[in-house]
């Protein structure tokens, strides 16, 4: 075993930290967060520096690196600012489905635009009433001559309204079992028949839009099918696994950032004639926070590292996400408490770490789903 980053990983990490330090202007970000706006210019700069699509192949303007490096970016960005970091990392949401399963033509057309900061992407997968799953979706895509005609409604669409294209999961064969019934379609933003309804202000991650999308006889060319008909469900399952490791990275960075702010504050703040970092109960609280962050980091790095080695495990992914989401929530909560009244004030820049953490922990999966998945793995199949 080896718990060290490689030299090049350390360089990437440092570059990401430097970028965040240089470009994440506090006042600007507080305003963007308040106004629910995507940090467009920062994202464009990030793509100029090659941070966007770092895991895309070179030919698609990527750096040909792995999920691990993408997770390092998530951690570094979110540690500096959880809201902006999450927005940058989620800007290419869903594009991994294109990367892994799309035709060369589709990839050549769209992936570089994502990586070059021209286009935000989005996976439009779940629907109202399906919880976090996609087993019972109702949106259909029916082939008619040279087109697919899509009808239905997608809920909780990340970047809905901001994205240049959507990867839309549709039932193509209503008569077969859900696992074989679906296909994934690339739908461009301007395609007639799409209506976007923004979901409004959120608990956290407010620089990322969430929307409901309705598709009313939306027509896309046959070639916009991503991968094979019938593979949609499996593709999405695979994507969600990858995405959740990135989300674990976002949560990890959020936890780390909250810890850093808390440590900095207790080292400076004086009450009762001494630095509050000298109070034993507060020291123990900081230690508890540090343990949570550290364990979350180990679990997240392991999931990412093994993913890149082709050792893909739902259980490891969900352990990483559960550990990181729990750490982010607990550490951000403790950071607010350690700041006292100042922690509650937006300007201090701590409270949004909590809101972002909680959002991350419940928006795309919740504890119930994560524990259920881990239990499946640990308990195994049962007879009788």
């Amino acid at each position, binding site marked *: 075993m080896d718990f060290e980053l490689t030299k090049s990983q350390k360089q990437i990490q440092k570059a990401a930290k430097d970028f965040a330090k240089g470009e994440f202007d506090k006042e600007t970000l507080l305003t963007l967060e308040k106004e629910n706006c995507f940090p467009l210019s920062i994202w464009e700069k990030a793509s100029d520096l090659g941070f966007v699509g770092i895991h895309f192949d070179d030919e698609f303007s990527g750096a040909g690196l792995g999920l691990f490096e993408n997770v390092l970016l998530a951690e570094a960005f979110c540690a500096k600012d959880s809201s902006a970091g999450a927005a940058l990392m989620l800007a290419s949401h869903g594009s991994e489905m294109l990367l892994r399963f799309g035709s060369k033509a589709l990839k050549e057309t769209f992936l570089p635009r994502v990586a070059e900061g021209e286009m935000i992407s989005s996976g439009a997968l779940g629907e109202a009433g*399906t919880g976090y*799953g996609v087993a019972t979706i109702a949106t259909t895509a029916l082939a008619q001559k040279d087109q697919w005609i899509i009808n239905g409604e997608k809920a909780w669409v990340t970047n809905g309204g901001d994205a240049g294209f959507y990867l839309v999961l549709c039932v193509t064969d209503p008569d077969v079992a859900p696992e074989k019934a679906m296909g994934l379609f690339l739908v461009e933003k301007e395609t007639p028949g799409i209506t976007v309804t923004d*979901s409004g202000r959120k608990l956290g991650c407010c620089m990322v839009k969430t929307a409901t999308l309705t598709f009313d006889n939306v027509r896309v060319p046959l070639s916009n099918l991503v991968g094979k008909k019938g593979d949609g469900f499996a593709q999405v399952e695979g994507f969600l696994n990858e995405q959740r490791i990135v989300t674990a990275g976002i949560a990890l960075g959020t936890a780390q950032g909250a810890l850093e702010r808390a440590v900095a504050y207790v080292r400076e703040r004086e009450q009762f004639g001494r630095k509050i970092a000298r109070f034993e109960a507060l020291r123990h609280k900081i230690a508890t926070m540090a343990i949570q962050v550290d364990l979350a980091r180990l679990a997240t790095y392991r999931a990412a590292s093994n993913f890149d080695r082709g050792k893909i495990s739902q259980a490891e992914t969900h352990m990483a996400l559960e550990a990181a989401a729990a750490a982010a929530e607990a550490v951000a909560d403790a950071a607010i408490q350690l700041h006292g*009244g100042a922690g509650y004030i937006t*300007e201090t820049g701590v409270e949004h770490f909590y809101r972002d953490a909680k959002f991350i922990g419940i928006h*795309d999966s919740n504890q*119930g789903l994560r524990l259920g998945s881990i239990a499946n793995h640990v308990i195994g199949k049962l007879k009788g």
Partner: protein
Amino acid sequence: MEILKFTEKHTAFRERLRLFLEKEVVPLIPQCEKEHITPKSMWKKMGQNGFLCPTVPGEYGGPGLDFLYSVIVNEEMARISFTGLAAGLHSDIVVPYISAYGNERQKKYYLPECVSGDIIAAVAMTEPDAGSDVAAMVTTAVEEGDEIVINGSKTFISNGLNCDIVILAAKDPAIENKHQAVSLYIVEAGTPGFTKGAPFEKMGWNSQDTTELFFSDCRIPKGNRLGKAGDGFLMLMGKLQQERLVCSLGALFAAENMFNYTKDMCRNTLVDGRALSRSQAVQFALAEMATEIRIVKTFMETLVIDHMDCKQIISETSMAKYWTTDMVNRIGSRCMDLEGSAGSLETSPLVRQFRDNRVTSIFAGTNEIMKGIIAKMMQL
């Protein structure tokens, strides 16, 4: 076991208040949240309808009711989760300084308008460098002839922008002993040298005009001192029991409210056609939360009785403050977990109520301070 004996009159009061809030207050909440302030007219309406300062005696313009009416107001305010109309703060935390420590003139002069809602009151203790460590305050009050000259600033003052009077803690720089140097003063808004900052942007309490207050050679009559010179600390300490009790009740009621919403939501939300509440894990989570709330509610009710019986329950109210305000955060978080995606949008009532309550473990003495008090009372 019925601990709080609500009479028919209490119940009628509660129902009148509930109707009033639904009709007059709830529709305005979104606007207030957006603007970080609540119109003074709403305070006046609250007062005109008899919902402010229930315990102020008739001779000072109040209805002279018992503390259970305050409990009712706090509960109903928690149900609508509206911090802009901080009725509990005004009626049960700030105004009691005047009721308890004011002289006859001060009481006759201020209390009737506090009851009617024409005066909104605030209390100003905290300073940037004097949070938990109240004794570290640097705001000064110096006697000059018939006047007191105040210099300094206060922060995190609820009702700060709206307030017409503020109960101000300031110290006499000539007195060395920190604890004997502090006196309380009534400062009226509009007094030259007294200015207010802009409302803070906060995690919650967005309809609340929490702000900073600045005093620069602000002169007030000597007669505006509350109680005796140098008794400031004692008076502040004397009112903490009710402050912490009210704060705990608010946290308890908020937790109950979030729980009730969540229980119904789990019953009514279908995922793939099955109600969330059919999941055993969800059932256990709800059972655990119901238990937590039920147990501490009984405790809180006995504290209300003790408080009404004028018992000193310093340790118990510190316990209540720490436990209920931690609990409301824990419950809010678990409720959002159960609601899932929908609980991550501001359209869920859980979100605002959670954000609003996150401060309760910090204000009225942080929970760390509470634990210190409990430890001290145990002579550790």
